[in-house]
């Protein structure tokens, strides 16, 4: 399958190329599930992208993803698809020169960006609403393996939110970790860390 074909910076996965169905890539998960994914969405996965870019790989065989389960992949695909949609709400910069594009960025563009931001906020809040910690962790592993930076950042931020402003013991319980410090070790670390300011340091 040709990899360089889809150069559109804001691919709309729903849009079909004239006269042909949208190209799909087949993925096979660890638990044997087969997923046919629009090429644009699949190319969001860094792993998939480099797999197809490396050599002329036949498109007929499904690409194996031994580290990802079906349920995780399904969630990931949902995220990437939605994310692409939201990104296509913002008109791409037409000029090569970023600063020039910025300068002429009209009211319309700014409005579109705002709307896109809002959509993304709502979507992301909804996405993880019912996920247990175990689910979130599974998604992180999947996103890391598949090399999807945006999803990974989002997931890690969400985990951070779940543990921020909580005590050490809370963090341990939350993730089921046994603390392995001796009291002396802990005291030493606390003392060492006493030198570090806790506040946000402005630049």
């Amino acid at each position, binding site marked *: 399958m040709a990899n360089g074909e889809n150069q559109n910076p804001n691919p709309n996965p729903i849009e079909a190329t004239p006269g042909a169905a949208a190209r799909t890539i087949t993925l096979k998960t660890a638990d044997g599930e087969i997923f046919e994914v629009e090429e644009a969405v699949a190319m969001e996965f860094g792993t998939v992208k480099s797999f197809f870019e490396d050599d002329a790989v036949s498109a007929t065989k499904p690409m194996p993803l031994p580290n990802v*389960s079906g349920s995780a992949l399904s969630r990931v695909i949902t995220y990437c698809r939605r994310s692409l949609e939201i990104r296509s709400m913002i008109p791409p910069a037409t000029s090569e020169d970023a600063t020039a594009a910025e300068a002429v960025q009209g009211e319309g563009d700014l409005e579109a960006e705002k709307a896109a931001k809002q959509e993304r906020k709502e979507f992301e809040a909804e996405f993880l609403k019912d996920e247990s910690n175990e689910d979130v962790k599974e998604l992180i592993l999947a996103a890391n393996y598949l090399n999807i930076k945006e999803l990974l950042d989002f997931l890690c931020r969400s985990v*951070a939110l779940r543990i921020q402003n909580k005590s050490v013991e809370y963090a341990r319980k939350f993730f089921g970790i046994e603390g392995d410090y001796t009291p002396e070790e802990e005291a030493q670390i606390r003392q060492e860390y006493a030198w570090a300011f806790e506040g946000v340091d402005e630049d």
Partner: protein
Amino acid sequence: MGQSTSTAANSSRREINHSHRSKSKSTALISPMQPPEDNDDYEIIDGGDPDYISELPDECLACIFQSLNSGERKRCSLVCHRWLRIEGQSRHRLSLNAKSELYKDIDSLFSRFDSVTKLALKCDRRSSSICDDGLVLISDKCRNLTRLKLRACRDLTDAGMEAFAKNCKGLKKLSCGSCTFGAKGMNAVLENCSSLEELSVKRLRGITDGAAAEPIGPGAAASSLKTICLKELYNGQCFGPLITGAKNLKTLKLYRCSGDWDKLLQSVTEHVTSLIEIHLERLQVSDVGLLAISNCSDLEILHLVKTPECTNIGLLSLSERCKHLRKLHIDGWKANRIGDDGLIAVSKNCGNLQELVLIGVNPTKQSLESLATNCKNLERLALCGSDTVGDPEISCIAAKCIALKKLCIKSCPVSNQGLEALANGCPSLVKVKLKKCRAVTMEGAEWLKNNRESLAVNLDNGETEQQDASASDGAQENGGGGGGGGVAEFPPPPAVPSQMAAAAVAAASNNMAGSTSRSSSMKWRLGLLSGRSLACTLRRWSSANSNARG
């Protein structure tokens, strides 16, 4: 546990290259995992009670920690040894209390935090700071430092700075305040750190001692420097060669530095014409200096704060040559040297003006009209402490400023009637802020809100003590940095150069603590009034005149 995945998935999920990853140091944010060629490298982690987060590879944990602040990261490092290691390795920014006792912990601290690129060493005025040896040791361990911030590290000398600079040649930003080293140390930094982009210096004692301080600059950093910020220097002129030699300089900020700067600005602008942003505050500079600055035809941002020797004439000549001016802040200190004439010239020459802040300046309808008509992109306007801005002037603004999005009026004789004009004027208006306008009441504000629902109306007449440092003010206090952008929500009210100010400053600090007020009035006597305290100053002064302590 509500697992929807099959058991096959469970065990395959655990076949993750766990231990392989934990050996590598994750200094970058996330090192993307390569797609596995085959599964032989993987270790199978036995089942048993799932230790959820330990299954996450190091780089994912580092990514999680990235969203946490310093205190939270500290708690994470106390969770277990693995978290300690990862947290330490993914720490890029560290701020340390740089007392002399820190020295003994430097070794272990920086073994743990081995990826620090942005470091702040802050000491307080009462303690002795780390010495040269400490700084050298730190620099030895943090060879990749890109930013260093020093505060009140009074025990660092030129020798220490030189040794540091030789270790951290990749330094991009240096900000030092209340340090005591001198020109030699500064020159050593400039010689060694050839990628230096930002230099911010406040109160450097070492350059004031001695009759003739060594000149500073330009050094190897001449072409890389983009921002220079000098504050409260007695002998700031010795930085002359540096500024003059920084041929790619974009931003120059000079605050409360003694001496006459006209001549230096002349020689600077003969060689450096790339300046885009200039801040001059409490500086001895006149129209001669303004004319010199006008050599920089790309100038976009200009702040003239309390420079009463700059007059309409200087502003006019500047506007004629700096036609790309986008943001203009003038604090005229009620000296009335800058007024309608200068502003009209700006309006006619600088059609791109987007942001205008006038404090202690008295524009009339004449200039306001001209600005409104000629500056079609004027989006943000702030008028503060103007005796001449009343209801008719607001009506004028409302009628003519088509592009205006944000309006801020403070301490002006505007009344509720003026608000009426805003209900229908300024078609692009999104936000209006009114502060300390005695004749504007809650009713007026409510009325406006009801009659123009899309408009955010903010009224503040209160005596509530708020640390009101405006955006631009805050940027000033933070030295260096790109600054200058953003709206000045509340420009500081005009200073009152009299004993009242001294008394007011003394009473200025929030908790009115004895020692604070003493140091505040001491500051004033040295003529180094900080912008931030001014906001509180005038508030106190106007409300508690007789209560002010001396």
